């Protein structure tokens, strides 16, 4: 019998998993890019980004592009390792 580790509840949510999968393949992405690719609402994305950032999975950088405020997100080492653990656990469930 395989040892089935529980799936990280922070990642086991459609939007947060989507955001993390997107960020894991990139160096950094702006808020608008995440919104475009996930198709979610700005409010929902903001809430999920905050949760991921509080857990230390991503880094949120606030700056300005011209006069407009700019939010850029970047996955952290903690985030990469959490994502890898999640994928490994997921594999065990599926196999």
């Amino acid at each position, binding site marked *: 019998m395989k040892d089935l580790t529980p799936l990280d509840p922070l990642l086991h*949510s459609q939007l947060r*998993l989507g955001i993390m*999968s997107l960020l894991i*393949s990139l160096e950094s992405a702006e808020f608008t890019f995440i919104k475009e*690719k996930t198709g*979610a609402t700005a409010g929902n994305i903001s809430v999920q980004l905050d949760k991921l950032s509080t857990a230390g999975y991503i880094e949120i950088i606030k700056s300005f592009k011209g006069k407009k405020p700019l939010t850029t997100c970047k996955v952290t080492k903690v985030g990469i390792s959490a994502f890898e653990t999640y994928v490994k656990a997921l594999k065990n469930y599926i196999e």
Partner: protein
Amino acid sequence: MEDKLSHTESLKIINEMIAQAKNNFDKSGSFYFLLWGWVVMVANLGHYLLVRFTSYEYPFAVWLLTIPAALVAAWYGVRQKNKASVKTHFSGLYGDIWIGVGICIVLSLVFMPKINFNHGAIIMMLAGIGTFMSGRMLKFQPLVVGAIALWIASVVCFNLPETDQYLVGAIGILAGYIIPGYLLKSAEQ
């Protein structure tokens, strides 16, 4: 959105999002290939024609065209950087390769007399490296073929006198930059 996810759904999200990120490479590569392609081809041809058919004293003056081209390339680069909403692990590396190639091209021009005025052949060789790497990174085969054309042009140039090297250089750039550049442009759209 605290919905319940099945394991296969999770896997599907991961795959879809990674594919979305992958499809997002910088779509401005063709601009540089076409800009430099046309400028260098015109300068090569101009230099060749001036030497062959006129007695103009400064045929190399046509290369002054590369100065405004460099300014346009820098302006375009800054504009694209400000416009990009995403940075891939590749985007920095892609530009770095061309910076390296550019430095080597300038060095070969500085030491023209030391390399026996074979700078044309050496520049083709260096441009081939950049084009080859760009083709591999963008997974765009016509650029790889273009790189091979540049290397063939380089071999031909090494066996020709300086003036004829400019003619071969123009043909090499047409095959290595301009044709793949237009193909890349249509692939980007």
